[in-house]
């Protein structure tokens, strides 16, 4: 029998994979993909809660799904801007390795 906890733990594992990617990888594009993984892990737990908490009419709670819709929209806009920044960075520095971009490092 599948419980809410199954979905929450799977979502936590996906978030951890994304988190580990941000911490361990040095390629800025892979770091960006890991950010997407983390956003989607949050979406999975939101949808699981929406299915778990039924409304009085016996439907899933669609407020959470509208929230997921907004998250997906913002993530798409974020990807567009982020990749444009990466391209601008590559044009200035000819690198995508974060260890070579340390101008702001204290």
């Amino acid at each position, binding site marked *: 029998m*599948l419980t809410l906890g199954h979905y929450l733990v799977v979502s936590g594992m996906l978030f951890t994979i994304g988190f580990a990617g941000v911490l361990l990888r040095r390629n800025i594009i892979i770091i960006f993909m890991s950010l997407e993984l983390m956003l989607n892990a949050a*979406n999975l737990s939101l949808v699981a809660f929406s299915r778990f908490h039924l409304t009085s009419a016996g439907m899933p709670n*669609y*407020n959470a799904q509208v929230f997921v819709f907004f998250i997906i929209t913002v993530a*798409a806009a974020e990807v567009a801007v982020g990749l444009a920044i990466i391209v601008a960075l590559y044009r200035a520095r000819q690198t995508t390795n974060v260890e070579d971009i340390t101008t702001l490092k204290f």
Partner: protein
Amino acid sequence: MNPFLFWFFAFLMLVFGAAVIINRNPIASALSLVICFMGLSALFMSLDAFFIGIIQVLVYAGAVMVLFLFIIMLLDLRAENLRKINYVAVAGGAAVAVVFFIQICFVVGQLNAAKQPFPALTSAKTDDVHNIGLLLFTNYNLPFQIIGVLVLVATIGVVVLSKRELK
């Protein structure tokens, strides 16, 4: 919700999610990410969220990943040659991630609702596109319009960033 399908798609999603951060070649990472999102959209559909599952495939697998692949090929990134690995930093990062995951499991284990199965849907049909659309244009009309402005700002920002010389 078939438990076998749940385990199959969860396993698919996690394996290819791990492949995203393990692969040295950025193109292989991007393609793994597509399969990871396919598994995720199957999990959404197992939760009766068909609309979210479909836009997951359309927006992520369709639009976002094409953008990623386009940028990777535009920058002509190869598999990165191995640099000297800072083992202390790698061990520290992995330890933080593992501790984080243990903490999530701990919190989920303490949550009483997490031990209960999903209640059955009592309504005959789940016309979720209809219901989400209704919410979007009534309760969430203002946020919806703000999102529209946000996308416009993002578009203008990308055009400005892509100009050859910033003034």
